[in-house]
């Protein structure tokens, strides 16, 4: 079965990518499988300058999920370009850079650094940073800001594919999806983590130093599916599904709802070779349920009239 996907100039040999922040710069997983078996992978979020991230503890396990408040710890975009990218098999697999900045100009600057990098197949824009300049509202919650950031990245990205990653922590995901599309996004990816919290009644302390953290894993899948369903109907650009995927069946649920491709995040922690075999399992499952092809199956959800 043909598992290739090709959208907005981004070619993936299969619909499985790994999600930013859960797969390092890719090299961490090389001992556990052949990176080129993936459709693509999204590198850990990059900022212009290195960031140390948040204090410990930063992670907590929750029922069927986890909380994280890593705080985009990363060695900066220059490090990625010079120290990681040259060692990645980017001719055989799509390497996607995930961008993090605190205002539109900075986002544009980051995109400019990566625009000329042959090894980068696409830029994924993480719009969930609280916008300090505009008084503490997260970018991802303000449609006007989403559009501005997208435009700024698009302007500097050369001919690179720009994917905008949306936050589920909004009242109306369709409005945010439209804002990104109007800003010129080539595709959308969703969801990022849900805002959450965990506390300990014995120590009477939050389980995460930052108090509030991002929830991910199987626990968020119903929310993610709903968001993808709404986004697919709101815009004409392709949508990539993310959130709680831990099996081929989960991945195909997102495709059924209309996603072009998927990203696997927290499930990479179940075992480090998890993502490598997922596309093959999806292919086998499609045959088993009698789907003619991935394209035929995509978006074929039967809604009640």
């Amino acid at each position, binding site marked *: 079965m043909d598992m290739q996907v090709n959208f907005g100039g981004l070619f993936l040999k299969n619909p499985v990518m790994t999600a930013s922040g859960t797969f390092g710069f890719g090299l961490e997983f090389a001992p556990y499988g052949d990176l080129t078996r993936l459709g693509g992978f999204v590198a850990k979020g990059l900022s212009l300058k290195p960031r140390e991230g948040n204090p*410990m503890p930063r992670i907590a396990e929750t029922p*069927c999920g986890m909380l994280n408040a890593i705080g985009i710890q990363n060695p900066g975009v220059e490090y990625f370009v010079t120290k990681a990218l040259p060692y990645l098999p980017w001719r055989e697999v799509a390497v996607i850079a995930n961008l993090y900045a605190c205002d539109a100009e900075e986002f544009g600057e980051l995109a400019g650094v990566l625009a000329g990098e042959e090894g980068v197949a696409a830029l994924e824009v993480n719009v969930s940073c609280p916008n300090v300049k505009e008084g503490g509202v997260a970018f991802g919650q303000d449609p006007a800001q989403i559009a501005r950031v997208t435009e700024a990245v698009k302007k500097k990205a050369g001919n690179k594919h720009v994917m905008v990653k949306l936050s589920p922590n909004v009242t109306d995901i369709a409005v945010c999806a439209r804002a990104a599309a109007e800003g010129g996004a080539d595709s959308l990816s969703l969801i990022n983590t849900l805002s959450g919290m965990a506390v300990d009644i014995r120590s009477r302390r939050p389980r995460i130093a930052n108090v509030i953290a991002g929830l991910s894993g199987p626990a968020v899948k119903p929310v993610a599916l709903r968001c993808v369903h709404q986004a697919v109907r709101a815009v004409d650009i392709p949508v990539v599904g993310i959130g709680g995927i831990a099996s081929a069946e989960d991945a195909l649920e997102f495709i059924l709802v209309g996603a072009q491709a998927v990203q696997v995040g927290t499930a990479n922690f179940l075992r*480090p070779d998890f993502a490598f075999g997922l596309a093959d399992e999806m292919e086998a499952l499609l045959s088993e349920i009698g789907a003619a092809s991935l394209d035929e199956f995509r978006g074929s959800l039967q809604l009640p009239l």
Partner: protein
Amino acid sequence: MSLRNCRSVKVLKVSPVGQSKTAGEFFELTLERPDWDGWKPGQFVMIRPSSWELDMLWGRPFSLSSGDDDSVTLFIQAVGRGTRRIAELSPGDAVTMWGPLGNSFAVEPDVPTLLLAGGIGIAPFRGYVEQHPRPENLSLFLAHRLPLDCYPYDLLSRTVDCRCMIEAEPSDLDCIIDTLRGLIEDNAKRGGLTLCCGPTPFMRTVQRFAREYGARAQVSLENRMACGVGACLGCVTRDGEGHHVQVCTRGPVFWADKVEL
């Protein structure tokens, strides 16, 4: 560098350690050994029983404690949800295991080497003693809270010079601290190597004395981990320069003067 991999392996044996009422809290888990080249004491594995399904997502990190060509043995204390369910495994159950992970303790065969273990921190030292080329240069001190038979102390005392102290009363702590001070000072004077694994307050004490006496000391950290491979950045600690570094790949063993505890 030995090759790492991730495999489903079978449980060979689960054996409780200790005769006391705490039996079941401490146990040895013996697993089939995948096709590894080998492992070094201080390294660890992540394990995740298949039976967890999606209840608990992360594997759990454990030091490699002992092993031969066909198996590896972990020495585990049941402290929470995951370790209690690991204690309930039976021979034949499937467990996903990835490793060997992280770096290892320094081995300087001809140098007097002092092993300082706090409770379950004795786990990696069993392998250290087993694999050390000149065990006559080793001595071990164990500080523990629960009955001594909960730990593989007897096994070790057959090979190396061993001492232990129980912390049953708060006042015992002062004696333990004094003993640590004396041991570290003496070993530093002899140009020895000091290796430590145990709870954070125990390691902090060792770190303080190591600084005071200029002892060459290593500590092994037990931060909470999700991936074990350096990707999630959930396990970080601050290094000597104040940068966040991953304990799972840059450690778990650090020189005591190059890490913030």
